[in-house]
């Protein structure tokens, strides 16, 4: 029985390229690989937003209404629905003058039980040390 830990680190702002959203879709998809695993084996995914990447977490995104795109916000909520560990760098959020009130924190409307955690970079750094594989977006 083994657990493979994947860490997705998002450093870029959303929408200009698909890159940041790919981190989320890959993290979500990682939870559907069970059929390829031995019994008892697990894959976990943690997602961290740092630097300009924290702008992905801005709430009230209207991508669907304006361009017919699923929003990055909705992908974050889907991640919460799958109980993924979603971290946002506190220092980088503060650098942009943003608080927890400005970002998506929960996905209660979908029945998600976990929330986005705003944490100091030290905690994100610790998470990165614990991962088997780190992927930067």
């Amino acid at each position, binding site marked *: 029985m083994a657990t493979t830990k994947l860490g997705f680190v998002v450093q870029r702002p959303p929408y*200009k390229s698909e890159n940041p959203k790919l981190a989320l879709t890959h993290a979500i998809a990682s939870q559907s690989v069970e059929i390829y695993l031995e019994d008892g084996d697990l894959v976990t995914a943690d997602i961290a937003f740092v630097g300009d990447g924290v702008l992905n977490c801005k709430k009230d995104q209207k991508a669907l*209404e*304006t361009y017919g795109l699923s929003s990055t916000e909705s992908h974050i909520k889907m991640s919460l629905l799958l109980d993924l560990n979603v971290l946002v760098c506190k220092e980088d959020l503060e650098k942009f003058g943003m608080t927890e009130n400005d970002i998506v924190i929960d996905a209660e409307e979908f029945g998600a039980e976990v929330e986005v955690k705003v944490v100091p970079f030290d905690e994100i750094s610790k998470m990165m040390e614990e991962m088997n594989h780190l992927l930067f977006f």
Partner: protein
Amino acid sequence: MKLVAFVSDYRMSVDTLDRLKPEKLGIILVQNGVYHATTKENGNPSSLLNYSADYFVLQEDLETRGYTSSDVDGKVKVISLGDVVDLIFNDYEKTAWL
């Protein structure tokens, strides 16, 4: 020359705007360029807003990213895609995409 420049990135690695000397300069913030209008880093507005220019930001790209007109710097006018077309055809002779 009357030039309107589209800025579509938040982090810019070129200084093209410093080198351009049009008689009239317009800057339209689109895609991730909208963060220049909405975001202050360490309390400071974007240095892109320091040019002698008329500033515009595309409403659709603002709202896509979770912002509204009330989040926009006072120097910047919020416009629609239709307004962008009007600016290109009526107010400026050349366009540049940065």
